[in-house]
């Protein structure tokens, strides 16, 4: 915490400011805009390079594939953003997704006539339940979310395995109407991507425009101050984990619709990509700052990297290494920028009185 005089405020002793002026754009907002812009530039550059190698990369089919491919990751990244903003992390989402995806298949097996909206609701509810388990354990034990969710990562996956017992659910077991959800398009845009867009917009709107949304940032920014301000920290963190679980549940149902073939291993290892997407998207791992738009862009970027590696015929084994390198680069870059900003703010004027 810097406790230094910046001279940033101009003290006017005798004449108060002349009426309410037009609010200027805050520094935070400007920094965020910079991050989102640079992500877009990176994305454009990547697409350009890949397209130069192979012009089909920019065909309608290919763009459709990209949008379809990133939808699930975008939804998960939005949920993870909610969690990271409060200075927590949820590593169990991959397992929640797998469990819910399998449960969806089971539901259709058990009750073949189930309309897909019901399945969607059941999946979201089951995901939410998993999130409640996470949130509850964290609230009760007051231990880092990392450890709890690392534990539930295995516990949920174990339940999934146990339940599936080596069985597989196939596309034929699920109703056509449900599977169409997975690759249908509206005006050339996949439904899945539209769902993701709605989730991003809703979460972004909530975080910006609602008191409880702003409180999430407050909690991540300075937990002790949040408590003193009367913010129900425990309740908010609990709710965030429940919401993240529900979003992972939604992603699980969509996963089932998209891939059609389900076994218990669905979504294994996805948590790394999701954390990477959020972090690359500018969500500070220290909490308190970052936006869902950035996280969503991060998810799109990661998916595009995956696709272009395949198109560029680069050894697919590089992909995981790239994910890791991106996480390191993103958090390192954030740190560097933060230090720079701090130095600039401090160096601005030393007791310029």
């Amino acid at each position, binding site marked *: 915490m810097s406790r230094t005089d910046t001279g940033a405020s101009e003290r006017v002793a005798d004449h108060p400011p002349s009426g309410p002026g037009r609010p200027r754009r805050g520094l935070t907002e400007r920094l965020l805009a910079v991050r989102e812009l640079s992500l877009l530039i990176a994305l454009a550059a990547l697409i350009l390079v890949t397209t130069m190698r192979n012009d089909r990369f920019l065909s309608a089919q290919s763009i459709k594939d990209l949008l379809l491919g990133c939808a699930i990751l975008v939804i998960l990244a939005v949920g993870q953003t909610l969690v990271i903003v409060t200075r*927590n992390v949820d590593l169990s989402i991959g397992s929640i997704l797998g469990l819910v995806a399998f449960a969806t298949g089971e539901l259709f097996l058990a009750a073949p006539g189930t309309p897909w909206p019901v399945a969607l609701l059941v999946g979201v509810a089951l995901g939410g339940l998993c999130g409640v388990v996470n949130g509850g354990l964290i609230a009760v*034990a*007051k*231990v880092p979310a990392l450890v709890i969710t690392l534990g539930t990562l295995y516990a949920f996956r174990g339940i999934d395995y146990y339940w599936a017992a080596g069985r597989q659910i196939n596309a034929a077991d699920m109703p056509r109407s449900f599977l169409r959800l997975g690759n249908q398009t509206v005006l050339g845009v996949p439904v899945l991507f539209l769902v993701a867009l709605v989730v991003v917009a809703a979460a972004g709107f909530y975080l910006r425009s609602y008191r409880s949304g702003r409180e999430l940032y407050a909690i991540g920014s300075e937990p002790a101050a949040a408590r003193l301000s009367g913010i129900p920290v425990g309740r908010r963190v609990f709710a965030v984990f429940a919401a993240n679980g529900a979003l992972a549940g939604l992603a699980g149902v969509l996963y089932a619709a998209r891939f059609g073939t389900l076994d218990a291993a669905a979504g294994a290892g996805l948590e*790394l990509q999701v954390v*990477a997407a959020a972090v690359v998207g500018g969500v500070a791992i220290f909490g308190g700052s970052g936006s869902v738009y950035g996280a969503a862009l991060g998810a799109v970027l990661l998916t595009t990297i995956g696709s272009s590696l395949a198109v560029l015929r680069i*050894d697919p084994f590089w992909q995981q290494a790239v994910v*890791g390198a991106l*996480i*390191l680069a993103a958090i390192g870059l954030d740190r560097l920028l933060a230090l720079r900003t701090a130095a600039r703010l401090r160096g601005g004027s030393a007791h310029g009185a």
Partner: protein
Amino acid sequence: MAHDSLYTAPPSGAGVETEREGGRFAALRRALGSWDAAVVAALVVAVLLASASVQNFATGRNAQFLLLDLVPLALLALPMTLIVITGEIDLSVASMVGLSSTLMGQMWLSSGLSLELICVLVVLLGGVLGAVNGVFITGFGLPSLAVTIGTLALYRGLSFVVLGDQAVADFPPSWTAAAVRNLPGASIPAAVVPVLLLAVVFGVVLHATPVGRALYAMGNNDQAATFAGVSVARTKFWLFVVSGAVCGLVGVFWTLRYASARGDNATGLELTVVTAVLLGGVSIFGGRGGLLGVVGGVLLLGVLRNALQLADVDANALTIVTGTLLIASVVLPNAVANLRARLHRRRQRAHLTAS
């Protein structure tokens, strides 16, 4: 130091707030003072129960299998204990083992170096991998959790890059046999001996040297440690280097034991290591725990898995058991401490109103 408070739920609290925490942690401390003993007792109970109820458990051959399976886990738990005591974590250990293993395979395949030299190089390279973690964590001041999640992915990815589509398996049989050989005249694997030696070294460093004192101090309060002349960053850096070097060693052992260098070696082992360390009574917040408890934790975990496996418990149930054990070993001490603190307060209140 932003990273020390990251992901720790209890309020870092200003001023008097910590005084209450002090009270609670004192209770926690009492609960944990006996944690070592509890782990050892649980271990004894587990062994006795398994011997009595699980067929084929109490045999020399089984002991050999059990111990051999535990060698990597035990080795990795040693530096992890020290790291967690300083309030950090290293999630990249399993990936470092995997990368060490493939590096060993690649060198054996294509470099023409002698295997002895390769082994040394792999341990040193492991140290370099750990140093990368260390630089990001102590040099840039980033949270170890985030950094090692990144290197978890990076190193695993690289280990696939290194060997790509092959598994190197033609290591000399004399070497691969040595990795699983028993001590003469006993059904105890010879590999246990270096593990024990290292455990003693780590135990002595942690419990009877100035370095160990500094580790506890910085895990509890790195500011106070800095004011007392402890080089917090430098010590942590070297801990991560040591962790990497031990991973290199485990990589060598793993490769020889399974006679196969593959990109997916030791996948997911980090969870088991962290579980064993926490089960051994090391506090995830840092500053508390001992090596004896961790060794107990490793053995307990091994005995449980082995016995359950022998009792034909489903592998999936074992996954659940590991996850649940991890959660229980962090939730239980805290829940107990909370309960005690609450009882204490109630007693105090009763005392006050009575007077």
